[in-house]
Structures are given as structure tokens and as C-alpha cells.
């Protein structure tokens, strides 16, 4: 996001006249609405906003946003977005990608856009499947996923998008769920972050990978498995209604988290860890928590800004240009030259 004057808009201002073509019930609808609801709250300006995407169901997103939009090619959206930001750093760029687009064919570009820290919001719609090509397993599919290309179940280990992002040098890592009411808060924090902000959004592909996230994302009944992180707040999850409030405590001996019961709201007594979104080590531990034994960490996992790539490139360009003569005529005549005058070099 950029320092610019806030614009008054409503959700309607961000909708296009194009028919939305996702399958009925697809999680993408909920994400679209969450984004269209968030942008007015941010005071974002449609004319300065660019949605850039790759290829996949998720990547159709730009067509439905009344902003500038570029639906590019499979996996390469980060590279296009980098060019756009270098050419015009004032644009507010949102990148939309899928688990296949962003981590399979485009894994390399994802790594580099994060490492360079180009200022943009990157929304990776993780449905653990190739939706658009009709349901093959993806790099985030769990082991034993049966799909048209893996009829006996997949055998390879899945990638962990948030761990990948952190490992690539991301300075913002967040997680959300398509239908969660908290998703706009994560988007807002990502937008406020100066630099590449990576958001993994669990998205339900109801046709090819229905309800794979139910263990923690089921709208009713899975809340006790969601650990919503907030900077400066204790890492609590669950409720009295769902079998008790619990927390994460750091066992310093084992250098590992453990789940503890919190009685009567006294999390201090239970030794529950307070979240520090600027602590990179902590972020690494959180994204590696094995789900099942632990709840799913969600919200802003890591947020510690660093100088952006485009700012560095422009500063360097300015420094290098300062006081330099930008005359093309002089440039062409650079180096060792010689003058042939009408008479001196006439042939003998």
C-alpha cells in the first residue's frame, strides 16, 4: 500500500459488469467479497489499484474487480507485478495466484518476488488442487491425495506455503480462510505492510477437493482448531463452549511449543506465549506447527517491514544519475574518438 489520499468508495464501486464464472459454492466467491469489502475500508482508489494474476480458477479474479487488471500467464504473475511496480511504484498492486500457479510452475518467481521484497499484496488461494485443469493434485496436496493423475493416491510430500514464503525472505506472512470473518483484517494488515505481503488463503474447491480444510475451517464446529494470532496478544484458542480455552506455551527445554489448558482466563498462570509478529524465529516455529497436535495458526503470523526493492532501485537510479550529463549526443560520442576533417585524411 502507499501513502495516498483516501478515497470514499462502496463495495459496489469495486464490482465489474462481468459475469462471475466460478462454480456455485466455490470459496473464491467469498474471497472476492472479502476483498471488495476491505478495499473501501482502506480508502483505496480503484484507478490506482492493479490486480495481477497468473492462470487458474483463482487467477480469473481481476476480471471481477473494477480496477486495472492483468490476467497474465501461468505462474509468472510475480514477474509482471515486479515490472509494474518498478515502472510505477505508486500503483497499489494485488497479486492473485493459486497453489499450482504460485508454488508449482511459478515457485521460482514467488521466491524471488518475496526475497526482493517488492511492495504488493500476494494472495495465494490454496485449495490443495489444480481446479481449472479439472482436479489433478497440486504441490500442496496432502500425501495419498487421489486425483485423475494420481488414481492410487499421491506419493510426494506437500509444500507448506507459509514456510516457503518465510524461507524465501518474506517480511509479512499471514493466513486466512475464504469464509472467515477475520479475512478482511488479515488483508488490511497486509495492505498496511510496506513490502511483499504473503497471505495464504485456504479456499474450498467444492468440485475437486471439497471440504479438505474442514478439520479447522468448517464454518461451525472447527473454531477450537483455529489459533488467531494478534501481535502482543496471548496465543489462545478454543472456548468454554468447545471444551475449554487452551494456549500455546513455549517449552524452552525442548525448544518446542506445547498445548496447555487455561483455567479461568488466567493465561499468565498457564505460561501462554504472547505473540510477537516481528519475531522471525517465532514465525518459523508457528508455520511449522504440525496440525492435529496443534491448532492452525491464522492471522498475521509475521510482520516486520524492511526496505522495498523498488525504493532501492529508484534510490540507486537517482544516485547514479545525480550530476550526470544525460545528453544522448555526448553518450554516442563517448570513448576514444577521432575526427576526420575534409582535408587531413584525404587519400594520397
Amino acid at each position, binding site marked *: 500500500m502507499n501513502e495516498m489520499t483516501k478515497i470514499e468508495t462502496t463495495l459496489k464501486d469495486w464490482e465489474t459488469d462481468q459475469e462471475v464464472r466460478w462454480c456455485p459454492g466455490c470459496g473464491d466467491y467469498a474471497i472476492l467479497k472479502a476483498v471488495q469489502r476491505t478495499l473501501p475500508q482502506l480508502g483505496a482508489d480503484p484507478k490506482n489499484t492493479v490486480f495481477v494474476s497468473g492462470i487458474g480458477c483463482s487467477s480469473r479474479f481481476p476480471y471481477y474487480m473494477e480496477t486495472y487488471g492483468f490476467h497474465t500467464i501461468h505462474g509468472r504473475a510475480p514477474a509482471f507485478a515486479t515490472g509494474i511496480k518498478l515502472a510505477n511504484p505508486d500503483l497499489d498492486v494485488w497479486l492473485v495466484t493459486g497453489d499450482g500457479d504460485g508454488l508449482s510452475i511459478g515457485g521460482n*518467481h514467488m521466491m524471488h518476488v518475496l526475497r526482493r521484497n517488492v511492495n504488493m499484496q500476494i494472495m495465494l488461494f490454496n485449495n490443495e488442487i489444480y481446479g481449472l485443469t479439472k482436479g489433478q493434485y497440486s504441490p500442496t496436496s496432502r500425501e495419498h491425495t487421489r486425483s485423475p493423475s494420481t488414481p492410487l493416491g499421491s506419493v510426494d510430500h506437500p509444500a507448506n506455503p507459509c514456510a516457503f514464503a518465510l524461507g524465501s525472505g518474506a517480511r509479512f506472512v499471514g493466513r486466512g480462510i475464504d469464509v472467515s470473518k477475520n479475512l478482511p483484517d488479515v488483508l488490511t494488515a497486509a495492505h498496511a505492510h510496506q513490502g511483499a505481503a504473503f497471505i495464504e488463503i485456504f479456499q474450498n474447491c467444492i468440485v475437486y477437493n471439497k471440504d479438505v480444510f474442514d478439520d479447522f475451517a468448517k464454518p461451525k464446529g472447527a473454531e477450537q482448531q483455529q489459533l488467531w494470532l494478534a501481535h502482543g496478544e496471548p496465543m489462545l484458542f478454543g472456548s468454554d463452549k468447545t471444551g475449554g480455552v487452551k494456549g500455546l506455551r513455549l517449552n524452552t527445554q525442548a525448544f518446542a511449543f506445547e498445548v496447555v489448558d487455561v483455567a479461568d482466563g488466567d493465561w499468565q498462570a498457564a505460561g501462554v506465549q504472547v505473540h510477537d509478529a516481528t519475531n522471525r524465529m517465532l514465525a518459523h516455529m508457528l508455520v511449522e506447527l504440525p496440525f492435529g497436535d496443534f491448532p492452525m495458526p491464522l492471522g498475521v503470523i509475521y510482520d516486520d517491514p524492511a526496505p522495498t526493492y523498488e525504493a532501492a532501485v529508484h534510490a540507486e537510479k537517482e544516485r547514479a544519475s545525480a550530476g550526470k550529463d544525460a545528453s*544522448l549526443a555526448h553518450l554516442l560520442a563517448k570513448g576514444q574518438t577521432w575526427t576526420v576533417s575534409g582535408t587531413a585524411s584525404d587519400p594520397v
Partner: protein
Amino acid sequence: MATQTAEAQPDTQVQDSMVVRFAGDSGDGMQLTGGQFTLSTALAGNDLATFPDFPAEIRAPQGTLFGVSAFQINFGSRQINTAGDAPDVLVAMNPAALKVNLASLKPGGLIIADSGAFTKRNLEKAHYDANPLEDGSLAKFDLLAFDISERTIEAVKPFGLGNKDALRSKNMWTLGLALWMFDRPREPLHEWLKDKFKSKPEIADANIAALDAGHAYGETAELSGPLKQVHMPARPVEPGLYRTITGAESVSLGLVAGAQLAELPMFFGGYPITPASAILHHLARLKEFDVTTFQAEDEIAAICAAIGASYAGQLGVTSSSGPGIALKTEAMGLGIMVELPLVIVNSQRGGPSTGLPTKTEQSDLYQAVYGRNGDAPLPVIAARSPADAFDVAIEACRIATQYMTPVMLLTDGYIANAAEPWKVPDPSAYEPFPATFLEGLPEGEEFLPYKRDAKGARPWVKPGTPGLMHRVGGIEKHETTGNIDYSPANHQRMTELRRDKIAGIDVPDQEVSWGDGTGDLVVVGWGSTYGPIKQAVNRWIEKGAKVSHVHVRHIWPLPQNLGELLSGFKHVLMPEMNTGQFKTLLRDQYLIDAESLTKTSGQPFQIAELEEAIGRCLDEKCGGRIRTNEDQLPNPVGVEQ
């Protein structure tokens, strides 16, 4: 500077052109020697063409045949178009260099060899059973063998360098001797060395001492026999300011000029690859010209970022060589679909696959014209020489921005590395072609992102422009709104519109480069074969044959008059450094019986081989070389002499 003049010194010869090849181990600094000799040749006012020929390995094992690095220069007081067929002088710094290069030396040519490097070990590495400097096997050449290594060590002794470091100055010793041979001043070299080793003055001094010693050797040694001073008068040329330029420099400068003429900042996305990297290196130093360079994570990201920059309102440029161009293919298709300006420079090298990274070829023409999925036309233009690449790069920028299209600019390894004198152009002599952005519409008019102008170009809208938000992408889009539209009639129409836009690009009429434009035989070329074709055709014209040379810059779309021009000849001969790609294209376009002459050795054509092929063609296809029943040819019109 040696003060002998042609009159005063009976051993001095006057010659109008000369070919010298410096050859040594990769570590011997032959490219540097060649480069500096080139500069001194240019300063002496000679015309010149160079051919650096080096191995793909950075430091191939010392003394081996595959580690030989050579630099050839052809220079003269007349027009020079090629680096020369066969050297008059071969400088061989070790046995391997002699072995690899001897075959091309002219009979009776001069060999200058460093006998100090002809050790038993080096002879073995070069697979010599006996020392060729001693066994009489070089009898048909003039041989000057002496211990350059030892003389260099001697010369730099006062500077306290170890033997290994001292031997590094061998190339400067050799350069000094070459400067003496051609009566050139040493001062510019002294200045250059002082500047190059600013932080290590003792190294500068050692090199200067070596250079001077080599020069003094020529001056004072009792050189009975082969070594003679040659005086080469300056070549009469148009008055003006001159410099030498390589193709890579020329493309870079042309791109900067093109962006300025389009009044756009330039964004250059690249990924290192031989022989294209030099363009990235040059542009990275030109930030004050509103140039942003981006070394991407791969060639795909490089082109995608460039398209992204074009989308945001800059002139996107990307450059690579064969393998990298292959990777960019999909993104080129997107560029064609979203109709944004983009310049793609392909410095061709030998292929397929990794092929011959440091050798030259013209085998990416099919890839350039046809090599994309779908009906995906884009304009292709080719530079014919290092200097020509400047104008061609400007032309690429013009077409890209005026027609909202990716443009492919073809050069090759030869053009990229070779240097030639260049009359520094006056930038104000070029017609500007400012890019225009759509910034708003008259009240009530609907915005149509794909509505075309008379040239077939769609409007360019920068994100950030109020009221003109729209979406673009690679999916087939409606003819005017640009919204997704898969309908059969629309795809048919859009395919035709894309084709017609490119076919309708305003391309200058084809000129005849040499010859009178009709007659028995036309030799048609494109790209870096310009020099040798021109010289070979000229030799036949001088003998009275009815031959012309046509050299095509606009490969796609072709000049409107080309078909008619070619039909004015009995026969068409097409030399190419590939298996006949442009020939196939012209046959297809004009149904002409063009004949291929192909060469894919990684080496440029020699004049003599083209001359011979033309002679054969005249005999077999045109009823004889010089047909006496024809009028004697007047001096060809429109020909530079």
C-alpha cells in the same frame, strides 16, 4: 613512435589492407590485445572489421587446443566489410594457437611465434610430435620465432614481479611489436594502461615497459627477413567524428535513442547469457538516461517484467540468445494478445539447445517469425553490422510503440562482439515518434480498450488514469471491449486483425545494396552476412558479371517491393548461416526458386567461398559468368565506392 617513413625506410611496405590474427591461450589476453590494436587502428584512420573468436570455457586448461582464443582484424585504407578470409600475419603465443590457426594463414603469410612457449609439455598438449618451429614444416610461410616470454620477463624485471606475473605482460610486449609493425603511436596505450591499473601503478609500469620493449624490438633488432614495417594510409571517409563500436554497444545505444525518440523511460529485463549479456552490462551503466535494468531470476521473468513495465507505461525491452528466447516464447504470445509495446533482442548463437555459446549462427529465424503457439505474428528485423544495429534498434522501438506490438530484433554473436568504425550520428537528425497515452474520452463516449486506430493499434492506457480502468489478459477477447469472448466469429476476426496489423506495418521499400538491380543473379542476404556478400558480389561486378546484392533488414513483414525486385533476376542465391531458413520463407512468400548456400560451422562466411559459389551459380544457372552478348556494365548505380 617509430619515425621511419615509406621513403626513408626501404623495408617499409605500403599496403591497402591487411589481416592480422592474434592467437594464444585463453589466459594470454589475446582479446585485450586485439581490442587495443583495434583502437589504435581506428585512431590511425583505417577502416576495419574484427572477429573475436574465443572458447566457451572461461579458463580452459592451459596450452590445450580447445583453450585457444583468437582475435582477427582486417584493416585498410579502403573499405573493409569483413574480418578477412585469411590472415597475412598470425601471432601464435603457444603451440596450440599455431596448430588451431595455421590452416587459415595465407600461403607465404608471416608467423610470429613465441618460441619460449614451445616447450615439450606445450607441444605435447597441442599434439605435436616435433617442434614445428624447428622441423621445417612451416617452410611455406615466413617464420619469425623468438622467445617473447623471456624478453618480457627481462623487460619487466625492474618491477620486481614474479615470473608468473611477469608473463602476464606478454600480450603487451606483443602488442608493442604490432604497433611498431604498423607504425602506430604508443602514447594512447600508455594512457590506457595507466588508467586501467590506476590502483596498481607498478603493474601499469610493468605493462608499459613490456609494450615499449616489444616496440623497441621491432625498431632495433636486426631483422633480416620477414619482419617489415607496413605503412597503411588512412582510409578516405566522410568528414566527421568517428569511434569504434561493437554490436552490443550499438544495440544498447540504439535502444536508449529509441526510447528517447518515443519519449519513454526504458525498462530492460535480462538474464545473463552469451553473447547477449553485454547489452545488459552496457545499459546497467546508463541509468541517467531514464533506464531501469532488471536482472531477473530467469529469461521468463525478464520478459514478463518488461511486459509489466510496458503495461505500466514504459518501453519494455528484453534481450537474450536462443535458449533464453525459447523460454520467453509464451510471454511473447501474451504480449501479442494484450498488444503492448516490447522489444526483444536475440543475439543469435549456434544451436540447437546450448549449441555453440560463443560462436555465431543465424538459425533462429524460424523461431523469430514462426516460433510461437497459435497464429502469433510479430515483426522481425535484423541488423547487418555492428554500426547498423544502432538504426535497427531505433526502428524496433518505433514499430513497437507505434503499432503496440512486441518486435524481435535479430543480431548474432558475430555482430555482438565485432567492432567497426562508426561515424557518430547526430541524434537530432532522427525523426521523433512520441508515444501517446489515452488519458480520457469525450463526455459520453464509451471506453473501448481494443478499438484500433488507422494503423490497427489499440490505445495505450497507463494504470492510474481515471475512468479508464479495464482488464487485459491472454484469453481471447472481444474485438472492441476486450472482455473475454470465446465465440467462433470473434476469434476468427481477432486472428485476422492481429495478422493484418503486423502485415500492414509501414516498412521502407527494399533497396539494392550493390549492383544495378536487375540481371542474371541476385544474392540475397540478411543479418551479419552483409560484409562478405557485399565484397564477393563486388568482385564479380568488377569482373563484369550481372550480379546484385540485396540485403534485407525487414524480415517480417517483408518490404512491399521485394517480390517484384527479386523477379527481375534470372536466379536467386541465398547465403545463410543456417540450413536455409530465410530461403524457405521467401520461397513461400513469392514462389521463387531461391537457392540456398548454407554454412553452419559457427564461423562467418569468407569472401572467397561466396565468390566461388556465385561463379558456380552464374555458370550453372545463368548461362555463364560474363556473358559477352550483353552490354558492358557501367559503373553500378547507387553504389558506395
